[in-house]
């Protein structure tokens, strides 16, 4: 039995198999419509996340399975003081696989240690969000045909943005990737990441202005400055509008550059960009369902 806690839990070969399966699901959905019949997914969401939860629920429903669960801690036994270890032992009796989101870092790992069914980390605080990373990788691989030989710009909140940290850790395993980090001084990527890149001899740049590097980019990964990651509201208000991608800035980009965003967007990408063929973020949400379908099948050993 396997869990998914970090995108690095899978080797690049295992990821290739997962992405091949996701692409097969994309092109032949009928073939998988009953693949999980009789199986139950438990979505244990201790903090609100409409997008990720619905993506998991859509994935399981499209595989012919059923879904049970809760969508915030207040409506779960956690409100009565139950531990994560106890909750997962009980959920193991009710479902065949569990997707867990928790505000505390490492909570899904604790669940995975006690669980009798596979546990998927659906986001643990500011730590990991592996299915988002798998979504990002599948989107890039499907739309670009490869996962190597890119210059990728990561823009916005690079300090607290867990999707960014996970994506960097996942991409360093592929050849010839160059990173350009675009952020205000206060939201720079943490030292342990730049230390790791230097150790692995992977090229990176840190800049403040998006316009300066736009022509070099093959991929632009935009992020939202998230209010919930700040202790201080003043800092949040000062930094939230630092980067806004509009058509003027996009005009500087390559014709085949892709704009990615984990969503939800607030105002960091102007709505006018949505119709540009380079805007890939809604397509990304679609790939999120395919990759979660492939993941459920793989962890249930039904692939």
């Amino acid at each position, binding site marked *: 039995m396997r869990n998914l806690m970090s995108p690095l839990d899978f080797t690049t070969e295992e990821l290739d198999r997962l992405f091949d399966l996701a692409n097969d699901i994309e092109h032949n959905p009928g073939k998988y419509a009953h693949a999980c019949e009789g199986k139950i997914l438990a979505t244990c969401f201790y903090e609100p996340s409409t997008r990720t939860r619905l993506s998991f629920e859509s994935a399981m429903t499209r595989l012919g399975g059923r879904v049970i669960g809760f969508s915030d801690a207040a409506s779960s036994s956690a409100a009565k003081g139950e*531990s*994560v*270890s106890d909750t997962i032992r009980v959920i193991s009796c009710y479902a065949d696989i569990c997707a867990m989101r*928790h*505000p*505390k*870092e*490492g*909570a899904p*790992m*604790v669940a995975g240690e006690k669980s009798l069914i596979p546990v998927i980390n659906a986001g*643990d*605080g*500011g*730590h990991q969000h592996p299915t988002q990373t798998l979504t990002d990788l599948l989107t890039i691989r499907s739309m670009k045909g490869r996962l190597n030989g890119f210059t990728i710009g990561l823009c916005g909140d690079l300090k607290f943005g867990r999707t960014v940290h996970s994506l960097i850790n996942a991409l360093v395993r592929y050849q010839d990737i160059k990173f350009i980090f675009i952020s205000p001084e206060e939201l720079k990527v943490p030292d*342990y990441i730049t230390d790791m890149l230097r150790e692995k001899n992977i090229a990176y740049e840190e800049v403040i202005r998006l316009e300066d590097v736009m022509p070099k980019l093959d991929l632009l990964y935009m992020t939202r400055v998230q209010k919930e990651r700040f202790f201080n509201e003043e800092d949040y208000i000062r930094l939230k509008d630092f980067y806004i991608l509009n058509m003027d800035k996009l005009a500087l980009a390559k014709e085949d550059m892709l704009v990615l965003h984990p969503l939800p967007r607030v105002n960091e990408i102007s709505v006018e960009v949505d119709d540009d063929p380079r805007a890939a973020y809604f397509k990304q949400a679609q790939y999120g369902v395919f990759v979660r379908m492939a993941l459920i099948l793989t962890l249930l050993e039904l692939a």
Partner: protein
Amino acid sequence: MLNVGKIEEGFVLDHIKAGKSLDIYEHLQLDKLDCTVAIIKNAKSNKMEKKDILKVECDINLLDLDVLAFIDHNITVNVIKNGEIVEKKDLVLPKQIKNVIKCHNPRCITSIEQELPHIFYLADSEKEVYRCKYCEEKYTESALVKH
């Protein structure tokens, strides 16, 4: 010069950083053992100028070398049998330590989950960096657990 007698069977921890012997005493939980312990503070040392020494008369298997290595892997461990040094043990940084240090990240699951052990793994042996198994928070010296 203070004289402390020989021990027949047990171990001598030499080259402890001056002033650290009581911390080691605490972390090895020597207070819980019913045995003779000599704590020598600020002894003269050619190598270190001043050092602490711990002499413990007990079964060597009762000593947690992982904890000791984590606290200070430069300590020399002399194993004593029949009053003689029979072995010098090299300390290597343990791959994992349990309930020796505490994760201080308020966002970590260890801050709320009942009876969850605090487990840290060796993330970088060169820089001697330990990280929390659950949240990957880096260990800082203030995190040492008081027993």
